[in-house]
């Protein structure tokens, strides 16, 4: 299965990548996707996560074709 991964803002710089595409049958949750994409870096405590552009918690399930995004607290406005 294929999962598209995106990183934004300071997190993109910390992780050192803007996007990624994971092909792995062992990814069940957002947590798994994070570990696979970052080589098991520690998850920042205040990080926000979206699956298919909807906010989710880190334990959320992912499925084939999903887009999973990781980013720091938002600072628009």
């Amino acid at each position: 299965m294929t999962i598209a991964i995106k990183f934004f803002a300071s997190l993109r710089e910390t992780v050192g990548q803007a996007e990624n595409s994971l092909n792995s049958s062992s990814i069940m949750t957002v947590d798994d996707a994070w570990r696979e994409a970052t080589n098991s870096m520690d998850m920042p405590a205040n990080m926000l996560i979206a699956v298919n552009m909807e906010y989710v918690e880190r334990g959320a399930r992912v499925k084939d074709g999903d887009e999973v995004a990781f980013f720091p607290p938002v600072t628009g406005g």
Partner: protein
Amino acid sequence: MHIEILTDVFQPWQWLEQYESARRDVMAGQFGATSVFIGTMRDFNEGDDVSVMHLEHYPGMTEKYLQKIAEEAEERWDIQDSVILHRVGDVRPADAIVLVAVWSAHRADAFDASRYLMEELKSRAPFWKKESLLEGDERWVEKNTPDPGAERLIGTNK
């Protein structure tokens, strides 16, 4: 309802005048209250002089959340129209960053809905700011501070 992400400098008052003119046939005489909020770039932040701010966003998710927030406001308050404009890209001091406008029959709805839009935009819409300081350093703005006066308006639509 009008949601727009802008990549270039915009003039809030000119934009509003043109928008209202274009909608004159459907809107004129219908609304009694307009509440507008404009967020503008300052040339200082946390004690430092800021020369440029780089505004990044998550294309697709930004529009989706602005739309969601505006729909929530329209469900909750008696609103005739609402607008959210937000800049991305390089923003300079005195440039407008965000414009929120609400047209309503009554002032309470206009005030509440515009404040709601701003608060939700600041806590949920995926935008990020990076400041370039006059001395040459760059730094990410770490988080938005909540508006205590908006507390009674939020929390029910999360």
